[in-house]
């Protein structure tokens, strides 16, 4: 086994190209949290412009096929790109683009050739930003229980209903959503997926601020959610992806991505900040880390976080090596969520009330600790609650005398990469 990515001379050369490009193109202050609406909007525009510039290079969605505007890059280069953007406090894309990430993966598997040509290039090049629209007021964990309808009327589907806890701030250009297309049909056999232009008449948006919002208002990328209303929205029929009433199968791909099926190899940034804080912050006349009790707590926290990191690394490798997965994505999602909630108390124990305030003088870890207190709670629910993850795990294991359920398809790139590695 080899747990570390080895960098070839070609990768190091690529890293140089990436760092030089990022140095020249990433605007100052992209990792700074905005304090006003004006600052937030200006930052958003900067990030979108950066996204388009990355798109030109094929680096916005580096794994996307080149013919559809993606980078067509292999794991060796994608890893370098992710590492170097992460160093600047950015992800890929550098802004919230849930519908792009998960919609694109699903379209690659379920879209027609025409749809791939229409939908993927704007996503991969950063021309559009997309949000996923799943949850409804009466359908959260029970996605098959959605009420929003999309009824065929000639060449269009007519949408009526609402979605909640959607997106982030400053709007999106496309919506990737699921709706009931056969109201009299059986559960799971009556829903379909669509990619919708957000400017279509009849769509209205109402903001919603979650516990993780830094402040109420359009300044926060993470805590700002929306309710989106559809009132007789007429959507062209060729926006249907995966076939009418076949939406549950498309959902299996979408949810596989959302449930961390793809994994990652990052160390938890909260851990990095926490260790640094304990090394430098004085308490009772010595650095916190020299207090035996604190040291023990730190070791306990590290052990718990390492379990999550290792299973994420396992998933990362499984996807890119084309290994067959089953419960792995949901297991990692479950452990990440439950560990982050546990972490709120662990950090509170370790740092005391300093973990609860964002005060510039007394707040621990520059406010990261206080933010973790809120995010650890909020992050329990997006992408499926912990209970839903457990249901998925049990089904994938075949518990209850059921045939073990298969993981959602993530496309063929994994198999292609495996073949390339073996060659």
């Amino acid at each position, binding site marked *: *086994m080899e747990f570390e990515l080895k960098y070839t001379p070609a990768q190091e050369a690529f890293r140089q190209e990436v760092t030089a490009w990022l140095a020249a193109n990433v605007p100052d202050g992209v990792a700074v949290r905005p304090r006003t609406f004006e600052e937030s909007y200006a930052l958003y525009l900067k990030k979108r412009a950066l996204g388009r510039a990355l798109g030109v290079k094929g680096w916005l969605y580096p794994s996307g096929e080149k013919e559809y505007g993606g980078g067509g890059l292999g794991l060796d280069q994608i890893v370098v790109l992710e590492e170097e953007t992460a160093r600047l406090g950015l992800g890929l894309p550098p802004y919230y683009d849930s519908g792009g990430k998960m919609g694109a993966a699903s379209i690659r598997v379920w879209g027609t050739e025409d749809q791939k040509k229409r939908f993927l290039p704007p996503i991969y090049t950063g021309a559009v930003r997309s949000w996923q629209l799943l949850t409804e007021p009466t359908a959260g964990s029970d996605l098959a229980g959605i009420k929003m309808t999309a009824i065929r009327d000639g060449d269009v589907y007519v949408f009526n209903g609402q979605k909640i806890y959607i997106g982030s701030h400053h709007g999106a250009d496309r919506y990737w959503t699921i709706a009931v297309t056969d109201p009299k049909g059986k559960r799971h056999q009556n829903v379909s997926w669509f990619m919708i232009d957000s400017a279509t008449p009849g769509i209205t948006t109402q903001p919603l601020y979650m516990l993780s919002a830094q402040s109420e208002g359009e300044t926060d990328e993470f805590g700002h959610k929306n309710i989106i209303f559809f009132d007789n929205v007429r959507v062209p029929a060729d926006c249907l992806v995966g076939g009418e009433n076949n939406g549950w199968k498309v959902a299996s791909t979408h949810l596989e991505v959302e449930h961390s099926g793809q994994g990652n190899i990052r160390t938890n940034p909260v851990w990095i900040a926490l260790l640094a804080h304990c090394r430098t912050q004085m308490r009772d006349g010595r650095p916190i880390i020299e207090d035996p009790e604190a040291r023990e707590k730190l070791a306990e926290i590290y052990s718990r976080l390492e379990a999550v990191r*290792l299973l994420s690394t396992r998933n990362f490798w499984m996807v890119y*090596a084309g290994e067959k997965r089953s419960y792995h994505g949901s297991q990692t999602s479950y452990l990440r969520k439950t560990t982050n909630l546990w972490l709120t108390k662990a950090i509170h124990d370790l740092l005391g009330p300093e973990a609860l305030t964002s005060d510039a003088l007394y707040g621990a870890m520059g406010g990261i600790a206080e933010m973790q207190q809120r995010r650890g709670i909020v992050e329990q629910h997006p992408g499926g609650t912990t209970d839903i993850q*457990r249901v998925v795990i049990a089904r994938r294991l075949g518990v209850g005398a059921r045939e073990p359920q298969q993981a959602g398809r993530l496309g063929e790139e994994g198999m292609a990469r495996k073949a390339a590695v073996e060659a």
Partner: protein
Amino acid sequence: MDLSLSDSQVLIRDSVRIFVQRHVPRAELVRQAGAGEVWDPAWQTLFAEAGWTGALVPASCGGLELDPLSAALIFEELGRGAVPSPLLASSAMSVGLLLGCAESEQRDAALTAIADGTMILIPALRQPASSWKGVAATGSSLVDGLLTGVKVFVPFAAAATHFLVTVEGGLAIVPAEAASVRLLGGFIQAAYEVTFSGVAVGALLRPGAVSFDHSLSVARIVAAAYQVGGMMEMLDMSVAHSNTRVQFGTPIGRFQRVQDHIIRLLNAMDAAKWAVYEAAWAIESGRNGVGRSYLACSTACDSAIEAANAAHEVHAAIGSDPRFGLTLYTRISRSMYELLGSPGWQRRQMADAMGW
């Protein structure tokens, strides 16, 4: 990055699996446990023929000198079968301690004898009424070169041909017939009191450049792997039971409370398994393997008890019937919990080894 096993590692794992299937059926282990038998000494010959007794012994002393992951896979499969034997104590713990000693003919002779199966060297470390503070803190005093004292919770002491005893100034190899052993009863596997009464210890093995706790890094990993194997089997048993046990007219696995226990078991197992695999890689590739071995072992010790508890919740009453076999694993989860120091102690060592 490649998290797959090599062909030779798969071969090693499969050969141990076949051994367990052929020679150590669960029914036989249940019978042995019921009869108060600790292990089958005939296995030692088979272990030696397969090279497992010398898995971690340098090739220069006749061992296989396996990489840590290959060795871990041997113990993972033995743990899956709940195979009771002195292999872990002798061929991992004692070998680790010997490799932590300065080079000497005596050391290499012992390593050679362990590898060829003629010596079963059991470490006798713990002193009565003392908490575990590392190997160095377990040393017994010698009076006029004679060893007198008691060591407790010594694993598989009755199987020993020799004991490896920590004394002031180093380690002593003592013939087993020079000591008296007494099996400790209760819910603990093959743990003994070993009494030395005025035993002449001869030349000591002197400590080498690194601490004995450091030199036990691979032993910690393979001990953790043994527990991982046990958790794998408990998972399989629990899934199978949940699918066949019918209550209220339905397999109990349909109940989410039962599913939750199985998922708790799965998560405990996978957390330990991947910590073991990464630690083995870290040792092999020189990336703070000491710190990661503490992480792997502490995680496995905590996980094994969590997994066993979850398995018992799935199985209910039949799980507590010794004839069923689950308790073989439960007892191991308890017995190994502090074999190499408590998880809390290990995590403290991890913090030091990580340079915090």
